């Protein structure tokens, strides 16, 4: 019988493709918009995720995100190191600076000073050069998206910059996720960064901590807060702080929420109408089947299979469309690091399920209400 149901559905090509289009369109809209939304707000956490080895971030109690941070005295590092459970702790500096390029243009950059000895705080991988270049004097490493902004169409290696009246030479390109504002990022040694950033007395923005037991990072962060009076956030918490900051300070969630809701509504509208029309067209056949001796449960299953096929094809095409979108734009620096979180296709799957369940239920009501006796009229 289910096979007959599928034949019934695909027999009416117009409505079948209408349904598939409706579902595909909804899926595409929901998946793609949610993907962009999630990736955009996760830009707020890119500073945290770019540092791959720190379990806990320690900062001044008033600091909020990687970019909104208040500096601490340099002995904070020793205080943190004194806390049991801290396997290691290194200094980390983040500051804004203005850089003068060779052409004389002024560009705002983020200077990130990583621990001199261990270079903890650099992104995991490099596009060009090795992290060892930082041992050369006046070296900085630029991030890859910054490269496209500051040196479009040319290699930045060997370029000289002027930072706080100091000479800085770009000797490497890091593979990093850009920040929300896509600021150019220059990585250098902590001691070098102190020179590059005109400073106040306190310069230490963060202390990066490795936990003895990474699984106990949360407990460790609480202990650090207790013993030092500083604010300690685990990596995930601090990433969430960055995301929350974007959510609280921009209209992005509302905008994307509206689009996703629109996708859902459009899906319900297109699919609901088409499905109802399809069922109405076939109501006589359903009536005949009911008279012949097909139970309501079987009819429900038939409609469910029809909805399932429409859902499968439409959802598949919608997800593939999203994948093509992300894939197609992956080389664009604006979309660098964009990915589809696995939860999002599941969310759109639930949305598709809801759309089909809702419209299928509405359409089925007619069928189930149909008296088998009506076939004799």
């Amino acid at each position: 019988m289910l096979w007959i149901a599928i034949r019934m559905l695909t027999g009416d090509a117009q409505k079948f493709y209408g349904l598939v289009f409706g579902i595909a369109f909804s899926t595409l809209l929901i998946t793609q918009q949610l993907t962009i939304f999630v990736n955009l707000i996760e830009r707020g956490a890119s500073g945290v995720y770019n540092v791959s080895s720190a379990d806990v971030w320690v900062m001044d109690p008033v600091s909020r995100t990687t970019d909104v941070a208040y500096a601490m005295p340099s002995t904070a590092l020793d205080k943190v190191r004194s806390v049991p459970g801290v396997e290691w702790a290194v200094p980390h500096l983040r500051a804004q600076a203005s850089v003068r390029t060779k052409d004389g243009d002024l560009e705002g950059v983020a200077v990130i000073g990583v621990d001199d000895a261990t270079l903890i705080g650099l992104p995991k991988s490099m596009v060009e050069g090795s992290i060892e270049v930082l041992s050369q004097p006046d070296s900085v490493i630029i991030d890859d998206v910054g490269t496209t902004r500051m040196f479009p169409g040319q290699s930045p290696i060997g370029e000289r910059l002027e930072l706080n009246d100091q000479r800085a030479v770009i000797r490497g390109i890091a593979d990093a996720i850009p920040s929300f504002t896509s600021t150019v990022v220059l990585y250098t040694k902590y001691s070098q960064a102190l020179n590059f950033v005109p400073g106040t007395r306190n310069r230490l923005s963060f202390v990066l901590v490795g936990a003895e037991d990474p699984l106990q990072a949360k407990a460790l962060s609480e202990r650090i807060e207790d013993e030092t009076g500083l604010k300690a956030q685990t990596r995930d918490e601090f990433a969430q702080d960055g995301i929350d900051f974007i959510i609280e300070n921009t209209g992005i969630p509302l905008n994307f929420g509206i689009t996703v809701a629109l996708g859902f509504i459009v899906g319900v509208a297109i699919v609901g109408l088409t499905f109802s029309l399809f069922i109405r067209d076939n109501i006589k056949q359903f009536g005949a089947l009911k008279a012949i001796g097909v139970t309501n449960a079987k009819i429900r299953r038939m409609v469910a299979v029809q909805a399932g096929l429409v859902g499968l094809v439409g959802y598949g095409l919608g997800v593939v469309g999203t994948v093509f979108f992300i894939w197609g734009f992956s080389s664009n620096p604006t979309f660098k690091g964009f990915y589809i979180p696995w939860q999002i296709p599941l969310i759109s799957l639930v949305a598709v399920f809801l759309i089909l369940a809702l419209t299928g239920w509405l359409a089925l009501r007619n069928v189930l209400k149909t008296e088998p006796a009506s076939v004799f009229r």
Partner: protein
Amino acid sequence: MGTPIDTTAIGGCRPEAAICTRAVTRDFQAGQQTITVLHGIDLDIRAGELTFLVGESGSGKTTLISIMCGILWPTQGEVKVFGTDIYELSDSDLVEFRLQNIGFIFQQYNLIPSIDAANNAAVPLIAQGMDRLEARERAVAMLEKLNIGDQADKLPRQLSGGQQQRVAIARALVHEPRLVVCDEPTAALDASSGRRVMDLLRDVAVAEDRACIIVTHDNRIFDLADRILVLEDGRITHDGKDMPEGH
């Protein structure tokens, strides 16, 4: 055709009756009014006969046939089909009973447009849960009996009206039901096709243990009936081999 049955007798059904109705009434609500369509129908249908149910529009013949084949509940009364009191069955048992025992031929054929003739004819078997290929084989065999075996692969819209009707007949008979109900089989056909279809139906459908009820008002085919029942305003007014005068 055996001894005539006293259709007015009140009481239990005879065991040899294929369908037996006792004091069946049916009311419909129309706004505030209650319209009584059937007034205490007592009827016995015998197996092995082609029974015609004849009446004007609104005489209640569609209601009666619906009640007799288990798709419309009577307001009052008792209906036994081959000894089973069908309205005492649970809903799902009643559906299953229809599936096993009753073949339907609808006025509009109600074929599924997107599957071919053989598959349309095989629908009851498939609904019974038979393997699709086996069901199709049996449906093709039935179509061959109805002389349209060569049309088995065609979609309904590629068939003429008479051919579609024959596919519908095949669908009604493919699962060897004991009761065949046929609603206006010739209404949509021209005289010659209607005649041919009816001849075929009579040849194939009528069997020793099968009851066959045809609802019609097509007087061209009354001569094929073994028994004609005339329904007027919810009452049986005639029961006999031939039509009464004046019709």
